[in-house]
């Protein structure tokens, strides 16, 4: 499903180039549960952004579901993000003026899905994450764990093939964090490819396949089947 071949990503910081990723070779098959670990500055967020098509490699090839992403136009990348990839962030990134239900339905609004269908599907997914009773609450009326569950519901509302989670429990107490991980791991068991980026070995250790990055280079890849 994901094939990275010789991927480089270079930033220019203060006039001098910084190589965030160096010659990354990585293949991830559909349905895998992968953790990407490493200290901050190791390039794991950069890798996640490239995998999520929010950022493009400076060099090398990234093929998603067999298709070379470098040749895709901006709009085609948007469609890829909309229908194939879900994001979960450390800081949830819910739109504060919208209710939980509206936040979940947001990707469908911009995909042009009719309101009645949006509402039905958003309710279904909210029920799946156990938040249907809170559908009309706004983010500031929800706990951190609840906000993250809304964000997960939003990430999977258009049934993506890949879920990318950037420190999904990083901003939560350990009990809520565990619940969140259980939730997305359950989705992985349902066939969703799951990639979790974290600096926490306890969280990263839960994945079947553990990739370790250091200075932009993959230094370990355990459990690759």
């Amino acid at each position, binding site marked *: 499903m994901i094939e990275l071949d010789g991927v480089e990503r270079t930033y220019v910081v203060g006039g001098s180039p910084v190589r965030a990723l160096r010659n990354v070779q990585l293949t991830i098959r559909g349905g895998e549960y992968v953790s990407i670990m490493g200290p901050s500055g190791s390039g794991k*967020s950069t890798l996640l952004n490239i995998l999520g098509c929010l950022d493009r490699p400076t060099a090398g090839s990234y093929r998603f579901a067999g298709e070379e992403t470098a040749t895709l136009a901006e709009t085609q990348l*948007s469609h890829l993000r*909309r229908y194939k990839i879900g994001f979960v*962030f450390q800081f949830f990134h819910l739109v504060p*003026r919208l209710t939980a239900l509206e936040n979940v339905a*947001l*990707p469908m609004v*911009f995909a042009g899905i009719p309101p009645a269908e949006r509402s039905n599907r958003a309710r279904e997914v909210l029920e799946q994450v156990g938040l249907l009773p809170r559908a009309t609450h706004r983010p500031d009326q929800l706990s951190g764990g609840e906000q993250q569950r809304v964000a997960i519901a939003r990430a999977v509302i258009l049934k993506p093939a890949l879920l990318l989670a950037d420190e999904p429990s990083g901003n939560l107490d350990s009990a809520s964090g565990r619940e969140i991980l259980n939730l997305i791991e359950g989705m992985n068991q349902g066939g969703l490819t799951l990639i979790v980026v974290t600096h926490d070995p306890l969280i990263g250790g839960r994945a079947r396949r553990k990739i370790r990055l250091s200075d932009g280079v993959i230094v370990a890849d355990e459990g690759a089947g």
Partner: protein
Amino acid sequence: MRATDLLRYSGGAVRRHRLRTFLSILGVGIGVAAVILLTGLGEGARRYVVGEFASLGSNLLIIVPGKTETAGLAPLISTAPHDLTRQDAEALPVRVAAVRRVAPLIVGTAAARAGERSREVTLVGTTREMLAIRHLKMSIGRFLPAATPDAAVCVLGARVQRELFPGENPLGQLLRIGDWRFRVIGVIAPRGTSIGMDLDEVVEIPVETGLRVFNRSSLFRILAEVGVHDEITSARRAVLDVLRERHAGQEDVTVLTQDAVLDAFTSILKALTAALAGIAAISLGVAGLGIMNVMLVSVAERTREIGLLKAVGVTHLQIIAVFLVEAAILATIGGGLGLLAGEGAGRVLRHIYPEFPFHPPPWAIPAALGVSCSVGLLFGILPARNAARLDPVVALMRRKA
């Protein structure tokens, strides 16, 4: 994406910042209201002048002693070598077929007394024809007699009657002007000011009497009414010919058509309206800058939201649309409210000054609304493009806005 969803999404963002939204709407509103009010004043001034001329009768030739070299308004000081006489006036309808009626005119101010009361009046010496030419109406009595141009009778303006003969029937009473005494034979219905002469403040007397009172031999001017408007140019030429012949071959009068005078006023007042519209347009432009400012703040505040939209697959164009619609909402509401305010203020003005025809020209309203909407869109483009160009990676790294 559906249009209603786009409207609701952008509208939701607008509603969140009530004060900021209110202020930018206010800016646009003031701009639009200014366009409507200022052009309304300019157009009102034009209509006022046109209306004044129409009340004078649109088929008038105004014959003034003296020759002006350039076309334009009547010369203030007459330097005619030949007098403009009552006989000149009487010759016109006889010699020129197009001239239907003429009224000679001599005008001056004088102190009028009746019993113990006295006041300054505008003394007008003329003939019976004046009644028809100036569309005057009598409230009581009759106008000047046709047969006796030197009778010692007078007709009063409405205010003169009210002040000199309060609560009395003035008919048959005597009015003294200097050593002259006039019997009141009629009162003109209230009329108001017309081209610089307040018809309520006049005392009209027969023309010969008037020349004697002022000890003058030349008329102030002659008003000649042409039967058909299309003949006014040829009639003007014919009148000039007749008067040149009567004045020993010398062209020593000026014949003004109302159209010429009116054209001069109209072009001045149209320029005035355009200048006022230009000033108002500047305030609309400033309002546009206000919208741009609000939109730039809105984009800066919603960096994380924009990053998120990108992450969930919202396209470049959709993000631009979200912010442009937001700017358009501000501009449209502002324009609508400004329209109401401008019209409301116009109504108040019309109420306070009913004689002034405050009226924005027909192009003012669509122009004001069109400009306010395009200003909103124009000044919304830069912030919207800023939003669409935002790097989602950077945007999403932020914890809080």
